[in-house]
C-alpha cells in the first residue's frame, strides 16, 4: 500500500516552518544531513510573523548590568519556579549568540546611539533586554531565517499537513500527510523527526493564533507515545483587540506599555497600582512619574505596574470588567496618546516606535492611537505546556523524535515572559536540529510498515465516506462548540465543576467529531482540513482540562477561583500526561529535580 504514495526520504524531517522549525532545519542541514521541511502554509507565513515586541537576550547593550544570571532569574520568577531550570539556564546563556548570528545572516535590528543592537523594556525583564525591529520583530526573524535557509539545500514542502507520525517499533520512522493544493497523500520517511508546530490557541474562541494554531504537533507526538508536560499553563495575553468583533483576539503588543502606554478603567483610574504582587514589590514603582521615567530608560527608576507579568495583568483586567468598571465593549482602555503631555511630536514618536499598531488600529478599527485610547481585553495567546523534552537535546521520550518552540514545554514554567518566545525558538530550534542530525547520523534508516500507512490513510479519508445527513454534521459547528466550551470553562478563571463539565463535553464532542461528514473533493478543501484538525483540538483540549483539574492551586497562567493561592507543595512537581495502553489519557505528577546550588544562589542574589 505504501508504494502507492509518493515517498520522500530524509535524514531529518522538520515539521513546522516558523522560527523554531526553520532554525532547526538550518542547523541540521549545516551538519551535512538531508533535511525536509514541512510548512502548513506558504514559507514565511507562519505565526512567528505575528511576534511584535522582540527577542530577549542579555547582551547588555542598553544597560550593562544585565547578564545571563539576571535573565535566568527573571525567567524563573516569571515561570513561578516550575520551569525546567536547565532550559532556563541554557536559554539565558545562549540567546545573545543566537541573536548575533541573525545579524550575520542579514537581520537589521534597531540600533543604539553607539551603533549596537538596541534593546527595549518588557514585562518581567529587569533590564532593557529585547532586541527588536520596531514592532515587527517576528517578521524580521522569520524572513532572516527563510532567506538564509533557502540557500542551505533544504527541501521545502509548502502547504502540506501532517496527519500522523510513523514509527518503527519504539523509534520514530517518519510522517504521513497530504498536500493542500491537490490533496495527494505523501509518505515522509526520516531517521529523525523534529516537531516545531507552534501553538494551540484555536482551542479557544478568543485567540491571537491563526487557523494553524491547532496543536497539531503536541497531538501527533502524544498519539505516537510522547509525554506531555504542564498542559494546564495557558497564557492569556492581557492586551488583545476587542472591537470591532472581527478583530477580537488580535494582539496588541506589550511594547505599547513598554513605550509608556497605561491601562485605565472606565473611571479613568490606573487600576494596576491597586494590585502589585509581593514578589514584585521591590521592582515596581508606586509613583506614575517614576513608572514613566522607567519606560524612557531611566536606569534608576522602577517599572510601572502595567509591565508586571502577563498572567497578573490579564487577571487584573478581567477583574475590572467583572466589577463593571470596563470599557463599552467589555475590556479596558490602553492609552499611549497621553504621552503628548510628556514629549513633543508624540504622534510621530508613536508612529515610529509602534508602526504596526498604528496601522492595525487605523485600518481595522478606524482609530488613531496617537489621539485616542484603545479598547483591549485578554486573548488566548501561548501554551507554556507541550511536548516534554530533554533540556540539552530537545529529545522526547520517543527515540528519534525531537520538539522545539511553543509545542515543546519546560522553559517558561507557569508563565512566559514576553520576548522569551522568539529567543526560545532560536536557542532550542538550533539545539533540536543539531541533536536530530546527530541521531540521524548514528542510526540506520527506519522501516515504515504498509499497514501503518494504510491505517493513517483510512483515518484521513473517512470524513468523505460518511453519508451526509442521518446524524452527521459539518466540521465547523463542532469546532465552534469546542472553542466556546473551552473559553467558558477552562479559560482565564477556572473552577472544578466547570472543568468537569468541559471534560464530559469533550467526550460528547469526540462522538460528534467521529461522525463529521465533508463534501467535495480532496483539492484545497478547508472543510476537510478542519475535520482532520478536530482530532488535534480535542486531544489538546482534553490534556489542558485534565492538567487544570489536577492542579489545585493558582500559579502563572493557571488561575483557579476555588484555589486562588499558590500551594508551595505544588511548586515541587510538573504534571505529565501520556497515552495509556487502553488508549485513555493519563496524568501523573512528577517531582522537579533539585536545582544545583549555583543556580539557587543566582536566584537568591537577584531577589
Amino acid at each position: 500500500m505504501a508504494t502507492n504514495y509518493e515517498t520522500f526520504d530524509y535524514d531529518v524531517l522538520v515539521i513546522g516552518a516558523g522560527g523554531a522549525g526553520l532554525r532547526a532545519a538550518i542547523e541540521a542541514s549545516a551538519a551535512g544531513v538531508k533535511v525536509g521541511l514541512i510548512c502548513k502554509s506558504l514559507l514565511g507565513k507562519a505565526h512567528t510573523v505575528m511576534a511584535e515586541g522582540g527577542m530577549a537576550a542579555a547582551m547588555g547593550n542598553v544597560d550593562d548590568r544585565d547578564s545571563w544570571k539576571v535573565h535566568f532569574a527573571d525567567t524563573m520568577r516569571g515561570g513561578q519556579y516550575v520551569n525546567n531550570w536547565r532550559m532556563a539556564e541554557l536559554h539565558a546563556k545562549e540567546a545573545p549568540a543566537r541573536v548575533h548570528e541573525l545579524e550575520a545572516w542579514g537581520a537589521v535590528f534597531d540600533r543604539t546611539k553607539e551603533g549596537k543592537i538596541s534593546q527595549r523594556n518588557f514585562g518581567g525583564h529587569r533590564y532593557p533586554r529585547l532586541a527588536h525591529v520596531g514592532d515587527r520583530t517576528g517578521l524580521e526573524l522569520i524572513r532572516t531565517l527563510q532567506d538564509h535557509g533557502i540557500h542551505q539545500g533544504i527541501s521545502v514542502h509548502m502547504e502540506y499537513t501532517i496527519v500522523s507520525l510513523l514509527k518503527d517499533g519504539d523509534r520514530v520512522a517518519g510522517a504521513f500527510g497530504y498536500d493542500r493544493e491537490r490533496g495527494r497523500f505523501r509518505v515522509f520517511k526520516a531517521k529523525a523527526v523534529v516537531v516545531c508546530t507552534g501553538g494551540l490557541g484555536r482551542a479557544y474562541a478568543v485567540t491571537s493564533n491563526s487557523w494553524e494554531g491547532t496543536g497539531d504537533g503536541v497531538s501527533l507526538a502524544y498519539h505516537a507515545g510522547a509525554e506531555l508536560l504542564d498542559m494546564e499553563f495557558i497564557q492569556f495575553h492581557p492586551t488583545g483587540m476587542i472591537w470591532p468583533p472581527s478583530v477580537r483576539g488580535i494582539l496588541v503588543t506589550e511594547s505599547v506599555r513598554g513605550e509608556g502606554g497605561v491601562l485605565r478603567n472606565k473611571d479613568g483610574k490606573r487600576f494596576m497600582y491597586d494590585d502589585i504582587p509581593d514578589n514584585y514589590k521591590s521592582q515596581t514603582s508606586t509613583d506614575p512619574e517614576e513608572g514613566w521615567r522607567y519606560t524612557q530608560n531611566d536606569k534608576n527608576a522602577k517599572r510601572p505596574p502595567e509591565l508586571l507579568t502577563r498572567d497578573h495583568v490579564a487577571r487584573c483586567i478581567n477583574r475590572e470588567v467583572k466589577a463593571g468598571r470596563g470599557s463599552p465593549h467589555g475590556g479596558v482602555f490602553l492609552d499611549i496618546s497621553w504621552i503628548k503631555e510628556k514629549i513633543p511630536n508624540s504622534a510621530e514618536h508613536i508612529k515610529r516606535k509602534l508602526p504596526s499598531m498604528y496601522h492595525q488600529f487605523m485600518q481595522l478599527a478606524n482609530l488613531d492611537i496617537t489621539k485616542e485610547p484603545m479598547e483591549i481585553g485578554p486573548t488566548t495567546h501561548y501554551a507554556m505546556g507541550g511536548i516534554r523534552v530533554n533540556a540539552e537535546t530537545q529529545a522526547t521520550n520517543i527515540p528519534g523524535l525531537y520538539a522545539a518552540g511553543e509545542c515543546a514545554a519546560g522553559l517558561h514554567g507557569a508563565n512566559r515572559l514576553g520576548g522569551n518566545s522568539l529567543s526560545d525558538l532560536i536557542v532550542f530550534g538550533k539545539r533540536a536540529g543539531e541533536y536530530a542530525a546527530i541521531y540521524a547520523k548514528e542510526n540506520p534508516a527506519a522501516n515504515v510498515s504498509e499497514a501503518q500507512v494504510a491505517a493513517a490513510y483510512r483515518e484521513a479519508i473517512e470524513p468523505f465516506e460518511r453519508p451526509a445527513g442521518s446524524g452527521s454534521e459539518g466540521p465547523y459547528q463542532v469546532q465552534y462548540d469546542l472553542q466556546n466550551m473551552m473559553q467558558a470553562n477552562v479559560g482565564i478563571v477556572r473552577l472544578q465543576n466547570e472543568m468537569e463539565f468541559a471534560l464530559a463535553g469533550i467526550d460528547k464532542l469526540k462522538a460528534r467529531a467521529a461522525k463529521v461528514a465533508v463534501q467535495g473533493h480532496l483539492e484545497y478543501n478547508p472543510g476537510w482540513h478542519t475535520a482532520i484538525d478536530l482530532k488535534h483540538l480535542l486531544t489538546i483540549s482534553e490534556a489542558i482540562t485534565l492538567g487544570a483539574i489536577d492542579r489545585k492551586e493558582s500559579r502563572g497562567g493557571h488561575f483557579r477561583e476555588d484555589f486562588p493561592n499558590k500551594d508551595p507543595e505544588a511548586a515541587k512537581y510538573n504534571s505529565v500526561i501520556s497515552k495509556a495502553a487502553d488508549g485513555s489519557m493519563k496524568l501523573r505528577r512528577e517531582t522537579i529535580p533539585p536545582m544545583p546550588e549555583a543556580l539557587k544562589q543566582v536566584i537568591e542574589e537577584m531577589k
Partner: protein
Amino acid sequence: MNKTVTFRIWRGDATGGKFVDYTTEITEGLVVLDVVHKIQATQANDLAVRWNCKAGKCGSCSAEVNGMPKLMCMTRMDTLNTDKPITIEPMRAFPSIRDLATDVSWNFRVKTKIKKFKPRAPDAADGTWRMQQEDVDRVQEFRKCIECFLCQDVCHVLRDHHLHDEFIGPRFLVYTAALEMHPLDTENRLPELKQAQGIGYCNITKCCTKVCPEHITITDNAIIPLKERVVDEYYDPFGWLWKKIRPQG
C-alpha cells in the same frame, strides 16, 4: 445595523471557472475576509482561500476586491459600496489553483536565484557589527515587506506581458535593494539585475507602490536607485572611461 450583501466570488481552477453569487447578512465592523469565511462556513465548506494572521502581517489573503488588489483581512466592509454585488477574485497574474488560491510558487523560485547576503568582516573583536540607525532606516523600510505579492499581481510586465522568465518583478527588486543597500553587504548583484532579472523592463508606472499594504515606496526608494546603479555601472561613458584608465591595484 445588520445588512444583506452579495459577494460575487470566482469559483474554479486552472481549467476554468465562473463567478458565483452568495448572499449573506453582515454586522458592523467586518472585513472582507470575515464575510468570505462566513460564506465558507455556512454555504460553501469547500471554498478555497488562503489566510493566516488576519492582521495584515503575513500577506496570505491577497485577492482582487472589486478589481483592486487587496489584502482581504485589511479591507473593511464599510469602505465598499454594499448596495451592489462585491466581486472577489484571485490574483490574476498567477495561475489558479482553486477559487481564491493561486499558484505563487514562481516567486519562491525567483528568490533563490538572488545572491544571498554576504556581510563584511565583523567590526568588533566579539564578532559584532556597528551600524547607525539612520544608515539602516532605508533597508528597514524594504524589510517591512510581507510578501503578499500584490505588487507582482499589479505589475503590467508580469500581468499583461507574462515576462516571468525575464523579469523578477517589484517584490524582488525591493528584496535586491534591501540587500544592495544593507550597510554590511559586500556582494554585487548589478550584472544579474541588468541581464537575467530585467530591471530595464520596469517603466516606473508606480502601480506597485500604490497597492503595497505596507506602504513601501517601491518605485522611488528601491527600483529607481537600483536603475541608477545599473546605469552608472554600464551606461555612463565617463564612468566607463574612468574604469578603463584608472590606476590599477
